[in-house]
């Protein structure tokens, strides 16, 4: 169980450019946070920082689980469900193989067919991923997220490339994740369709 995600005096530097500094926020279990801001303001960098890929230039990120508090980056990553703007999909593998690999890699036993069905991909299960459209790849990414069983979801533009039914599904998925006590942090330019707090970067 995750209890909260906290950023304290967080700063991020890319090259010699300071993207943001003194960033404080806290997200509790069951809450969603939307990161907003113009292009290049550091939304993706903030997500990568929370995931533990980037070390912060200053400050720290802490997630509090029911037993422990974790501030070390790679340790934190073990609780992160990731949907980046790159799809992470191999064209040579079939949709089913791709999802099965991911479930085994994360050591989770999940109903893979259920996730594919929910995302409307059950007919494509045997199809090599090179034939998927951008929207279908995004749906596969969302199915992967469902399967991961991670409490902290970090999503980079979750609605991009999706059709209106897909957007609805994605919002529904995020809402269900929050309802089950998870946390969603998403960088997005699109309206969420459900209650979420927002964090505007680059306002100051």
């Amino acid at each position, binding site marked *: 169980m995750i209890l909260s995600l906290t950023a304290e005096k967080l700063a991020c530097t890319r090259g010699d450019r300071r993207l943001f500094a003194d960033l404080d926020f806290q997200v509790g279990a069951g809450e969603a946070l939307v990161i907003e801001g113009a292009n290049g303001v550091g939304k993706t960098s903030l997500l990568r920082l929370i995931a533990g*890929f980037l070390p912060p230039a200053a400050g720290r990120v802490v997630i509090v689980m029911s037993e422990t508090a974790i501030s070390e980056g*790679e340790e934190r*990553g*073990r609780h992160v469900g990731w949907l980046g703007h*790159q799809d992470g999909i191999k064209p*040579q*593998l079939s949709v089913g193989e791709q999802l099965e690999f991911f479930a*085994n890699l*994360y*050591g989770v036993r999940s109903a893979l067919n259920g996730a594919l069905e929910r995302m409307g991909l059950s007919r494509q299960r045997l199809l090599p991923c090179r034939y998927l459209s951008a929207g279908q790849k995004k749906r596969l990414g969302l199915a992967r997220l469902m399967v991961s069983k991670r409490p902290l979801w970090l999503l980079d533009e979750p609605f991009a490339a999706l059709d209106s039914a897909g957007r609805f599904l994605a919002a529904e998925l995020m809402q269900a994740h929050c309802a089950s006590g998870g946390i969603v942090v998403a960088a997005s330019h699109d309206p969420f369709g459900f209650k979420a707090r927002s964090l505007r970067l680059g306002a100051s």
Partner: protein
Amino acid sequence: MSGPFASLLMRDLRLAARSGGSAALALAFFALMATLVPLGVGADLRLLARVAAGVLWVGAVLAALLSLDRLFQGDFDDGSLDLIALSPLSLEQVALAKFLAHWLSTGLPLTLLSPVLALLFGLPGNGAVMLVISLLLGTPAVSAIGAIGAGLTLSLKRGGLILPLLILPLLAPVVIFGAGAVSAALNGLANGALGLLGALSLAAGLLSPFVTAACVRLNLAG
């Protein structure tokens, strides 16, 4: 075979075996190179037998290098590496799985093909046997040292061009001892090269995951 480590290893082997994969490419390159050399050198079988070990060893190393730049770069470019980094595996384990997958999909098949190519060079039986043994002992070092280079250059667009320049000098001892073991067997000399070759592979295999993981970590943060 469904634990995290095994699943990553199996996926990489599967990708190497699929169309456009690295395994067939390495074998084809190795075979073509070994066919071209006798055409260039001429049909003097005594001369060919003398150069066989060196030529085949260099060929095997170059063939193994062909697919090395994609070891991490493919996963880095399409975002898979992010997902893999967040898995329960440490980056050291990831690096070990990748190095093993590379050896199983290139080093091992190249070793198995080598006796056939040794025939083209008229390498005597004991020399061919020693060639196989030396490749079996030495190619893990090629994959292990190569993995470090692949980790270092994974975010470079033309990393494949820089990689051989970084790695080939480090592979000189492997080629020297590998080809040396075959020459020693042909001349009926006592043979210490095999032991050194095995030691090189062992040391490289043990150290490589740690160095490679450090390089990958740096690139993920970049």
